[in-house]
């Protein structure tokens, strides 16, 4: 390790930040939640999650947080994901394949335009 200069501190921070985003709960621009209940896993949620993880790795994306959760309740439409963008309603996509995942990543996650073809719902369920 070479001796660092003041400006290197910011670089180290930038490079390391993505590895502690999960712990801090941020900062991130978009959160992708793969629903991995038994139904999701059976329908191939793991393949979808790995597809996202690989895209993030290959493109060296730093502001997308990947996480998983249990069943989203619409088991017939699995595998499903929810894409949450700061300040926008969450979007649920269903019946995904790695190809669809790739398109969602390019169009929605990177460019911000919802891929209407695969959308199941926009917004939250009502909470009691």
């Amino acid at each position: 390790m070479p001796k660092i200069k003041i400006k290197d501190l910011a670089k180290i921070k930038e490079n390391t930040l993505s590895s502690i985003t999960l712990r801090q709960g941020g900062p991130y621009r978009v959160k992708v939640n793969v629903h991995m209940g038994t139904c999701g896993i059976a329908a191939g949620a793991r393949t979808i999650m790995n597809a996202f993880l690989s895209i993030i790795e290959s493109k060296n994306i730093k502001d997308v947080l990947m996480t998983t959760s249990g069943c989203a309740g619409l088991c017939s439409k699995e595998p499903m994901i929810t894409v949450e963008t700061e300040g926008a309603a969450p979007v649920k996509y269903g019946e995904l394949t790695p190809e669809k995942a790739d398109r969602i990543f390019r169009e929605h996650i990177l460019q911000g335009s919802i891929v209407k073809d695969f959308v199941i719902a926009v917004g939250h369920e009502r909470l009691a």
Partner: protein
Amino acid sequence: MKPYRMELMLCAGTGCVSCGAFKIRETLEKELELKGLKDEIRVVQTGCNGFCEKGPLVLVTPDQIFYCSLKPENIPLLVEEHFLKGRPVKRFMFTPPKEKEPIPIMSDIPFYKQQMLIVLKNRGIIDPEKIDDYIARDGYIALAKVLTSMTPEEVIKEIKASGLRGRGGGGFPTGVKWESCKKAGIERNEDRYVVCNADEGDPGAYMDRSIIESDPHSVIEGMIIGAYAIGCSQGLVYIRKEYPIAVDRLATAIAQAREYGLLGKNILESNLSFDIEIHRGAGAFVCGESTALMASLEGKAGIPRAKYIHTVEYGLWNKPTCLNNVETWANVPIIINRGAQWFTSIGTGDVSTNPWGGSKGTKVFSLTGKVNNTGLVEVPMGISLREIVFNIGGGIRRNKEFKAVQTGGPSGGFLPEKHLDLQIDFDTLTEVGSMMGSGGMIVTDENTCMVDMAKYFIDFLQNESCGKCIPCREGLRSMYDILDRITKGEGKDEDTDTLRDLSDVMIKSSLCALGGSAPNPVLSSLNYFPEEYDKHIHDKQCSAGVCTALFEMYINPKLCTGCMVCLRKCPVGAITGEKKVAHSIDRTKCTKCGVCYDLCKFDAIIKQ
């Protein structure tokens, strides 16, 4: 770098390590591999998370699900259910005493909810052995700030304005100390030293250990900033040898800082050159006292000297020396980053004109004893004792009655129920016969005998007294002898007066704070619990059932169900009886160890 979808933050502080954290890590990694999850989920080892009572602990991110009291045999189920199938497992979560439903999210747990983290802001978030993790949390930014945009005088001014006072217990304003040290060095044209006091010796106190274990770079950064302000090139950390994990992590952190050029010559290309050396203490309590510590650093016996020669003028090797406690140093970077004004918004009093005028910022306490949630807590100055004991600490174990809280380590005093609403800061507790001290807090309940507790602390201090001055050396021994007699039922009428006289002499004439504050446990127990001394001396009774010479043990036949539990567990076979028939204790065999008393679920064992 491949992202992970989940991180398992495993607490690897001393408490959790001793209850099996490394075994948990091994099992977790094995199971994750077995289930094919090791590329998606990783285990991260952190410093002390604070909730030591419930170790080993794992925090699951990003959802902040908190698991506690884990055993290796729980791990396969946990990995399969939660990490594979996404169903958090309720039975491994924390359930507050007296409640049925567990609390899944860490920040919802009362123990964490009411804390305010400044010094411990990185605990459980960074890997203490990775300098990059610290930098990602704005580490060394304060150092960069002082090197590029502040003069040493401005740094001292900022620390003075923040009202930061010595967290080791003395409460001396840090900025004033730095200024005096710098001044002495300039006047005599001498080299100066900065020293970090990590010789934390109070029984039940482990604030400094946890800070170093969870965030060692914050202490190092604080020391570098101090060195810049004071103008010195050599720093030392005096740390207990009994803290092996903390020593290792600190050594790793210093080595990493050196590699990055954050220690050594021309730090971050500036004119500042500074390095830190670790010195391990050999386990003498008195070496936590500044002058004894410096004597020990010089290779001499750890004996304090008279205080009229200040260490900021003539300290280590007779050079101006600035000694601050671990927690004090760890406060420095964040004050520089966020400013004195922000820091003064937290805490009590007003420090704008008088640095002794208030207590600012937070204080870390180690909460131990008879509370439900023992652990490490950081709270804003000014919080009440009651909030710490009952809200954060979750009240007294097994629904017993609160008796007293002992603050400030062996030299602090006991505070009873009526003082629980006092605010905690440097000055308030001193007025009622105790002190905030370095942050040890021991809670006692109805089963604690105050005479016995006072005896315990006096015994500790008697062993740790260096013996240089007579009031401390002989005073403590005499006090111990008297207290020992009282607990054996041989107390005399004049004993309490003698204890008070001895206390008076010791306070007035001891050389250092060890002797000067040593009578606190005796005086505070005499003042707040005189009836206990009275009962011991005159009625030959110990109502808490601790002093074995002063009670007998019985079984109440009306309450005993004949469950055989005590009978089986009695180590000397003193209990006889049959199933479903009330048992009895053979008092010729009974050693009054209290095992039956603790085990009985029906309160049938009586100490009288």
